């Protein structure tokens, strides 16, 4: 059932998305990301496989799922009347018998496979509603992780005269970028940190590939490049880092960045996935610190947009 070349693993599609590119857009979330940022607000986007989401407060501990699962991945904590799932066994499970038998909607799955045709049908439907200047934005996860699928979607959209945008971590082989850039009108390019070690500490990977790719993309004519940075207090909001980011953007010949304040609205999803959110919920940037960062960018003659306050 999983033919990687023709099917994509998607965990959500949102029409009338208004802040991820110009106009009204359809935003497609692809599963899988090469990075693993501690503050990720879409933790279900990280794993490249479908994942079980368990809503403990709805569970009545009635053993239905235990009986249904052929891999014995789940047992019941009798005292608390809740299911305990061994996620290492579930990894990659496609049968999901447990979900079907749960009458209380306590088990749901994140991620479903779609063929290009199916996805294009949705896109063609939505396109009637975008109005002027809208289009498709691929996001995730990082769409680059499902390279073949992403490439086909972008190509098909491009052939249909649909405006395309993509948000990426930038961590992918250059050859892959080369394969899609012809079909891309707009790129949101994420910057986490300028220092390689700091970068690896927070995301699990070094940033040299990312920055190399950024440099190359920045040279292209027909693509609008919008850097994006989530401002994480105490991590990347130091004067040195903001300045280094600004210098980098200037250095590659670009002039725009969209900075987003860190938030913790995704934290509750960690629990559903059997993960723990290791980030202090109190850490959020102040309006002042965002403004302060904007000024630093401005000093480098870089247009900096805060949050949703963008000109697109």
């Amino acid at each position, binding site marked *: 059932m999983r033919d990687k070349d023709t099917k994509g693993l998607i*965990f*959500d*599609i*949102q*029409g*009338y*998305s*208004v*802040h*991820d590119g110009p*106009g*009204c*857009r*359809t*935003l497609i*979330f692809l599963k899988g*990301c090469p990075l693993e940022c501690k503050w*990720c*607000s*879409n933790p*279900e*986007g990280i794993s490249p496989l479908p994942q079980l*989401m368990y*809503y403990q407060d*709805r569970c*009545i501990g*009635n053993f239905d799922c235990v009986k249904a699962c052929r891999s014995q991945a789940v047992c019941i904590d009798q005292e608390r009347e809740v299911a305990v799932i061994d996620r290492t066994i579930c990894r990659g499970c496609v049968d999901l018998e447990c979900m079907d038998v749960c*009458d*209380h*909607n306590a088990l*749901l799955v994140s991620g479903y496979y779609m063929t290009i045709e199916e996805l294009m049908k949705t896109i063609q*439907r*939505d396109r*009637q*509603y*975008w*109005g*002027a200047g*809208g289009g498709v*934005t691929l*996001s*995730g*996860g*990082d769409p680059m992780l499902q390279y073949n699928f992403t490439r086909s979607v972008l190509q098909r959209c491009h052939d249909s005269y649909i405006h395309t945008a993509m*948000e990426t971590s930038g961590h992918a082989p250059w050859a892959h970028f080369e394969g899609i850039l012809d079909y891309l009108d707009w790129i949101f390019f*994420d910057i986490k940190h300028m220092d390689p070690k700091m970068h690896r500490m927070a995301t699990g990977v070094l940033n040299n590939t990312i920055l190399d790719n950024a440099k190359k993309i920045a040279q292209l004519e027909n693509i609008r490049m919008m850097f994006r940075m989530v401002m994480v207090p105490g991590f990347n909001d130091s004067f040195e880092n903001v300045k280094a980011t600004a210098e980098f953007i200037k250095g590659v010949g670009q002039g725009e960045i969209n900075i987003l304040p860190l*938030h913790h*609205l*995704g934290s*509750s*999803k960690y629990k*559903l996935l059997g993960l723990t959110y290791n980030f202090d919920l109190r850490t959020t940037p102040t309006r002042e610190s965002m403004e302060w960062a904007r000024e630093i960018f401005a000093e480098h003659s870089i247009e900096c947009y805060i949050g*949703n*306050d*963008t*000109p*697109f």
Partner: protein
Amino acid sequence: MPDNKMNDDVDECGLFFQYGERKSKDVKGREIEKKPSQRVQKIRDLYFKTSSSVSMEFPHWYTRRWMELEGDIPIIRRAEAIKSAFKHLTPAIFPGELLVMGKTHYLRGSYPMPWLSGSYFMSKEDDMYKEALEAGKLSADEVTKWGAGGGNVTESVGNILSVAGKFGLRKEELPILIRTAKAWKNRSVEDIGSRYEKMVPEYKEKESIMRSVICMFDSGYTLPQGREVINYYYPLKYGIDGIIDYCKDKIGEVAGKPDMDRLYFYQAVVIGIEGIKSWILNHAKEARRLAEKEHDEKQRKEYAEIAEIMEWISSKPPRTFRDALQICWTFHTAVLNEDCISGMSPGRLGAILYPWWKNDMDNGTLTKESTMELLECMRMKFTELDCFASMGVVGGVLSGNTFNNLCIGGLDKNGQSSANELEMLILESAMTCATPQPTLSILYDEKLPEDILMKSVECTKTGTGYPAWINNQTAMEFIMNNYQDEGMTLEEARSWSIGGCLESSAGTWLPIDLDGKEYWIPGGAGTATSVGVHFIGVPKSLELVLYDGMDPRTGERVFPSHGYKLDTYEEVWEAFQKYFRETVKVLCLCNNIQHDAWRKITPPVINSFLKPDCLTNGKDIGQMGSRYNTTFNVETCGGVNLVNSLASLKKNVYEEKLFTLAELKNAIDNNFGYKHADEVGSYSLTEQKKSPEAKKWARIHKLCLNAPKYGNDDPYVDDIFEKWESWFCDMCHDYTSLYDKPLYACQISVSTHGPMGAVTLASADGRLSGTTFADASMSAYPGTDRNGPYALFNSATCWDHSKSQNTQLNMKIHPSAVEGREGARKLLELIRAYMRRGGFHVQFNIVDSRMLKDAQANPDKFRGLMVRVAGFTQYWVELGKPIQDEIIARTEYEKTG
């Protein structure tokens, strides 16, 4: 990375109530908030402190004169009664007002019209009440709940008695109320009509239908007129004396000639309009009196000005914009005093008043600021209106709203954009003076300039819920089609407007010459569309199919057995069609009798002479004097729950055989193991509580909830939806009105989805017993549209909306989704997209649900908060709890990404 939707907003039942992401934990206020002029702010503050009040003046004098004229020709008797009542109304002018007059001398006054129906406002111990209850006439009242906040007088306090669940009456006026009501016993439209209704062979069925609240109310006895567009043309063009002169000439022409009813009609108009004239002059006198004793120089001058204007308009056509506006308001109130009416819409007032406005602006006697002040005053006047009717009607159907819909945009006589600068100010005044009335609609057409569209978006963004966005072309197609046999032309169709909350109503163009310039102004030319079969709760009809004609709530048999075994889905559908047809047939026959009694006993005089072409052909509205008379319709509520239930039955019971019909009925009887909504105290599916029994029904309930749902672009259910819509719209034509015209479909829920849901058990779509239906007709059931607005739009437009008088789609949008200038532009794109697909109507509540929850808990903090219900805007605190719950539960579209 952009955030995916928050899955923790899923409720117990596994439904999502939010689409997209929620950016902030803080409750989002409204982005645009403006203030009225100081003058109007004071009037509004006064309004907020005022309760709905009953004055018995009008009914008292009306009744007295009517009784005196025993034996006279009905229309003359009626006109005399109206005249006497108008003459005796105590004039009242409130400080700061620029426009004067109201239904009574109370700021927020109204009164019962016992000549129509008298039972509903009597005490429950009274025989009149008991008899009506028995006949199923008050069943809707019994299941309706009022909002206890704002100006509603839901309980008697001190010297003030609560009447009909909402209105305050001074104790000393109670004897007059009882005396007047008793005087009409056996004489009222209801009492006489009911006698003849009984001659309909299926009358017993009708009573059962009413008792089980499959139908909401008898329009003939409650709201015999309304949901139509008024026409101010004759008073504006000829003035009061001009109309009197015209009638007198006509009397000379027709007296003694065949078709003598014309004589009485013209005479009645003369009598009625004389009543209005004295009423105006009484206000002039009152203004003079106030001017004399007023010390404040400015206020004294204003009173004198009012007196002068009233004296002028008591006989002559307007000189200025302000004169014209006062004339419109005077005649508007006059019509509302004549009959129990909801939804008398001013129509395209900006286009109507433009000639005078333009003239005043050109010669410098008016400025934009002074126009704004007048328009704000007008808003207060319309907002002060109350409609006195039974609890089931005012509460259950209207939520206290009077539906004075003012339309902007649309096309002119030549097919060009009709938008003008005055309309821009009307929009602006609706922002600065945000009150429920008049509610605004924009007749969206591709030809409208971007300017007025953006202004309308700005107004939508204030969160007041208006303007509603209406598809001009779709409506014109309906108008052309529906009135083709009465000679409707394309040119004339362009003059249409919304009457009431969303009823496409036929109009006409009439010429005004001003300073050598000719203007063609639009105005209503059709009769009431508030008439016909009103509000069938369609899921209830399906429930009767499953229970083979019995109402499981009351245990009463409504219909004989349908005779189907229900072994196949097709049988269910056929049995449903059978019962639904039977319901429409019976109600239509009875309703025709009601309206016949109405037109014979209380023929409309004032609305008639205003409406073309009554005055020219000498016939009142009841004699088909209006140009367009194909206005009786069939209204439904809960169609989406019907469709979802059918989809669930089809899939679960018949195709996949996951459970049997008997098992489903068992689950329904047990409300899927949930407590009843009344016990929980909430009427929204989100808030329902499981009983310890719930485990037993969990599987079936899950399958019902997970069955395909309308609003997701899912062909499985959309096909059923399309089939239902097409069948329903066509079948209406098989029934004819009193005037021998076919009925047609009308699909607005107003507030009936609350009480009609209250009487319906759990349904096959997973909806629980007593909970509110999906609102409107194109809105998805709260929480079931999980694929965003574009998928919803696709589902909604899978059939041709011009087959119906209207359709209705309500969306709740979180303020953050339309933030800023870009957000405004994108909102317009969203609206435009739906219109281009042929969607008839969409409107928005741009408000944070958490704010609404807060308002539910702390009504005092939110006296001025307005929300869109279904085709109308109302103060939150004046809404009943079932409707409040439903609005909170509507899927909220957030900014995504």
